């Protein structure tokens, strides 16, 4: 006997209704049990975790700031994964974007530039991310190398490149030898959108991208091509679509978005380059993309959800005095339940009796 997971040909109606309820109910139940065991009032804890981060303008702005890079990267990854192209290296493309954008900010430091600076930094960031992503793309189309491995390994190359730059040529001369660049000049920093918070123009840019990709994937021939190559490569070939061209296109798109996200993060939130500039956004965005079911609007919702759990975890440390690890356990439980329920919706488990030889 063995257990196999097979795709449901159709999802029964009752499951479609019950599954989201379970997906919300089980994690909440798990959270209540955990908070009770830790001796905290579950109602207040749930409030601090999920409601407080979105209960006022400052909190909403922080959620938006946290969600922006996640959603941007996930949008590009969703396009890749739809086309059955496995770009795991968004973290590296993110760092390359941050470096390329940051390079312009560092070399123009101390001199006055015009309003061209920020748009140029964004272009450079996106371009660098796209070029970095095209490396595994070309390796796959030209040599048949597995893009999962090559894109992942280029993450480490990117990390060490950033490490070298902020330690060597770009190090802040007044920074007591810490591995970081100068703090960017005000004109190389993303303008804030309102008083009393950190919301910057990165978030509207991200929202525009969500709309653009919803249209691209849902309403254009290119979007159809991407989905067709992913779901029915043979049919796509008959339709005359070039698979190689498409692999390069989706790699370039997702690299450009990750690069843009990296530049926005460097110029918006961190305001300088340093090795710890990304707390793993490129990897978390993979979860966001799948949580959003590889759909642009879904990615937006999933990105906001992950951002809330992250900030909620911090809030729980501050307001409930929960230890860091307890908040991480809860975040892990949430993701586990949501993804597990999702799988149950699309797949079913069956015991298969194996024929004996």
């Amino acid at each position: 006997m063995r257990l196999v997971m097979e795709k449901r040909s159709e999802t029964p109606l009752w499951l479609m209704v019950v599954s989201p309820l379970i997906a919300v109910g089980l994690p909440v139940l798990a959270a209540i049990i955990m908070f009770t065991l830790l001796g905290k009032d579950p109602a207040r804890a749930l409030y601090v975790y999920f409601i407080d981060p979105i209960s006022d303008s400052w909190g909403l702005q922080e959620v938006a700031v946290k969600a922006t890079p996640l959603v941007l990267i996930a949008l590009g990854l969703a396009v890749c994964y739809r086309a059955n192209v496995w770009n795991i290296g968004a973290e590296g493309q993110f760092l390359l974007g941050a470096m390329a954008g940051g390079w312009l900010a560092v070399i123009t430091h101390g001199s006055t530039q015009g309003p061209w600076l920020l748009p140029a930094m964004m272009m450079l960031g996106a371009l660098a991310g796209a070029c970095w992503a095209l490396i595994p793309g070309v390796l796959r189309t030209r040599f048949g190398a597995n893009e999962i491995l090559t894109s992942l390994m280029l993450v480490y190359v990117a990390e060490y490149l950033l490490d070298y730059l902020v330690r060597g040529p770009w190090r802040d001369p007044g920074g007591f030898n810490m591995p970081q660049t100068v703090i960017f000049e005000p004109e190389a920093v993303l303008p804030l959108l309102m008083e009393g918070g950190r919301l910057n123009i990165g978030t509207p840019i991200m929202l525009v991208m969500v709309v653009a990709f919803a249209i691209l994937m849902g309403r254009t021939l290119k979007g159809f091509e991407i989905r067709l190559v992913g779901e029915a490569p043979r049919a796509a070939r008959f339709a005359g679509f070039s698979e190689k061209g498409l692999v390069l296109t989706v790699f370039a798109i997702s690299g450009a978005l990750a690069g843009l996200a990296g530049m926005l993060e460097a110029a918006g939130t961190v305001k300088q380059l340093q090795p710890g500039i990304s707390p793993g956004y490129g990897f978390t965005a993979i979860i966001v993309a799948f949580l959003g079911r590889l759909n642009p609007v879904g990615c937006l919702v999933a990105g906001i959800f992950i951002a809330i759990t992250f900030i909620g975890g911090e809030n729980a440390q501050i307001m409930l005095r929960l230890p860091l690890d307890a908040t991480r356990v809860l975040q892990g439980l949430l993701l586990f339940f949501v993804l597990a329920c999702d799988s149950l919706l699309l797949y079913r488990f069956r015991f298969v009796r194996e024929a004996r030889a």
Partner: protein
Amino acid sequence: MNITRRQTLTGASALAGTAIGAEQAAAQSALNVGFILIGPVGDFGWSTMHDVGRRRMESVLGNRVTSTQVEAVAPPDFDRVATQLVRTGCRLIFTTSFSYFAPTQRVAAANPNVMWESATGTATAANLAIYNARFYEGRYVQGVIAARKSRSKTIGYVATFPVPEVIHAINTVMRGAWSVDPSIRIRVVWISAWFNPGREADAARALIDQGCDVICQHTDSPAPLQLAEQRGNVFGFGQASDMTRFAPRAHLTSSINSWGDYYVSRARAVLDGSWRPADTWGGLGSGMFSLAAFTNMTPEEVSEATRIRDALAAGTLHPFDGPITRADGTLVIPAGQRLTDDQIRAQNYFYQGIDVAMP
């Protein structure tokens, strides 16, 4: 005057009422103190000892203070965490890493009604104090002990970032070692982290493979010391807390940080309105840190180390007396002079005889 039962009852409840009122007032006026830690409280080193200090502050000041602590905050997340602490009512916030110093300056300027204290820093402001301990005094003692224990005449040093705090520590270890044996050499591995047990152990392994048989560490976990224990015939020093139990056969001494009294005095100063920005740099004599009991040493070695520790605490021995010559041969100060605190804090060069590249 007749006191009726009713009056007595009213009086009693009024008394009870004031007592409850006072308790509520105390709870309301309790000072909320925030702590932002660079590592997890369970690092057994730097962050653990700040947590110990925080708990001591709570136990001494009782219900006059409460505290809120956030662990393992990455520098890019610092602004949000610090702002959230201010928003939840913290009026005194300790930020416990040099990596937080620049962001602390930024957030302190934006929140003038909150008092900020940065553990290590280079400048104060109207609402920003800096505090640190003269850990280099402990490094000097480590150098002396290392020179006595090393048979290969080579000391290994697991270093973090090439900031002045680490550079002057390496310089001082060698000063101490040369006071015993001028032929001692040092090797350094930079791991670019304050806490990363895996990389710390790798660095210690590389140093031991290169012939180092006494390992000093500037990183916060017991990993290098544990590796020394595992290898055998290699000695090491604990960092920040008493790490004897992690390496009963390899441990020589530990530098034990003790922030509790400082936290008590600063919180008390905010409570009674006497808080002023200050630049505190306490040595062995101040109680801000001490050395753990010497282990795995002969009685002669123990008495020598004790004598030097006491001389440093009393101020009769000073590790930054001239002459001091840079690695490139230029003279910094001649004999008879001593580096000022600002010069020590800005030290970004190795002494002559230390052949170590800055990363």
